[in-house]
């Protein structure tokens, strides 16, 4: 490996990892919101809504994300929907993440003690307040390890958006390796950057896990 080439490559790849982080954070946040709504719909007594939510998770967990991204990017223009690569990436990643988060959150809600719901009901809470004030905060503690896991999976899966022309770390590494004929250096740095990012997020999540273990 040639250090001077690596020095030249590093800033380019670092820039790519900023995009990776941006994509990961935005899509996990949107995915969490989608996941909460989907989980509540799946648990609701309304059969139609539960069915729609079930269909959504069935589709997005049952097909490869690569296929979903390609579908959004190459197929939607045929029906008149034109999206930029960034928009496509965010929509694709968020919808995919949402489907997985929905199942994580649903499991979390189901494992909240039934007595919590009864206490809320006896105190006159609305369904919305019960969820917002009592059930979801407790769900959050239960699911935080799984959310951390989902976050890291998502961070690595953002590499798939390289197929729809987004220049995140992976695509930058491919371009650099092709233009310099130095694949070793390019992918070594990319790998280190991925490890660095996942380590940071793992640390952040275990910090939260500790913080929430006070109760």
């Amino acid at each position, binding site marked *: 490996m040639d250090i001077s080439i690596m020095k030249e490559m590093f800033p380019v790849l670092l820039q790519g990892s900023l995009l990776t982080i941006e994509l990961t954070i935005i899509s996990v946040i949107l995915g969490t919101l989608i996941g909460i709504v989907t989980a509540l719909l799946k648990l609701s007594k309304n059969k139609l809504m539960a069915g729609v939510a079930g269909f959504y998770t069935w589709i997005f967990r049952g097909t490869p994300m690569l296929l979903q991204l390609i579908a959004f990017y190459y197929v939607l223009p045929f029906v008149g929907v034109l999206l930029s690569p960034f928009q496509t990436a965010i929509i694709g990643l968020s919808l995919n993440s949402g489907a997985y988060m929905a199942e994580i959150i649903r499991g979390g809600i189901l494992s909240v*003690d039934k*007595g919590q719901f*009864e*206490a809320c*009901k006896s*105190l*006159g*809470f*609305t369904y919305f307040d019960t969820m917002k004030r009592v059930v979801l905060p*407790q769900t959050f503690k239960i699911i935080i390890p799984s959310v951390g896991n989902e976050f890291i999976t998502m961070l690595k899966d953002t590499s798939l958006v390289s197929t729809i022309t987004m220049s995140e770390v992976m695509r930058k590494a491919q371009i650099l390796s092709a233009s310099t004929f130095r694949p070793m250096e390019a992918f070594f740095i990319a790998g280190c950057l991925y490890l660095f990012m996942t380590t940071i997020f793992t640390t952040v999540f275990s910090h939260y896990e500790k913080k929430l273990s006070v109760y």
Partner: protein
Amino acid sequence: MYMIETKNLTKKFGKLTVFEGLNVTVKKGEVLVIIGPSGSGKSTFLRCLNHLEVPNDGEVFIEGEKIDIKNKKHMRNTIEKVGMVFQNFNLFHHMTVMQNVIEAPITVKHETREEVLERSKIIIDKVGLKEKVDEYPSKLSGGQKQRVAIARSLAMRPDIMLFDEPTSSLDPELVGEVLGVMKDLAKEGMTMVVVTHEMGFAKDVADRVIFMDGGKIVEEGTPEELFMAPKERRTREFLNKVL
């Protein structure tokens, strides 16, 4: 007007009829204690009073207002007047003692934090947990948890308190502190319905005792009548076992 009135109250779980056609009334300031063997339907009956269990038939009136499950808002407003204390406490695990107590008045009644805080301090003091206001429930003993649960209900300023075997999951040495708080409440004139196995409490505090068995009210009367001179054979058998 009765504080609580049930008319023809019936509850079934699938094919199993827990009880059928129960008519019970509770007057203002009255302490009604319900005793009976496990599976007699007493807890289910209590849980029907605030519709934690929705009865299959019959009606419940709280201070003359019928609990109507079709009108959710009206139902919540009616249930709000009825505090409930559970066997397993059901404190909000993610909140401190103080947060547990102030939560419902702020969220449900939209009172300001300041006025609820002031009132809650007095209530927490009353149940003897002044030093524990900032602890999480996981750091409390069972007796302390149950006293917080009582305080949480009282913060809503209920007119009626329901107790569902409040001491059944406590270590024996912790039962007294919870019963003490309940006795104080009774003295202050709170209308109470208590399902319990604590016969001592029933004798000392109850105005009226109901003995339930097999989903039926076998006998009811003052503690003197029921404990000293039970009329029914089944009541006598039960009392012989537990006393």
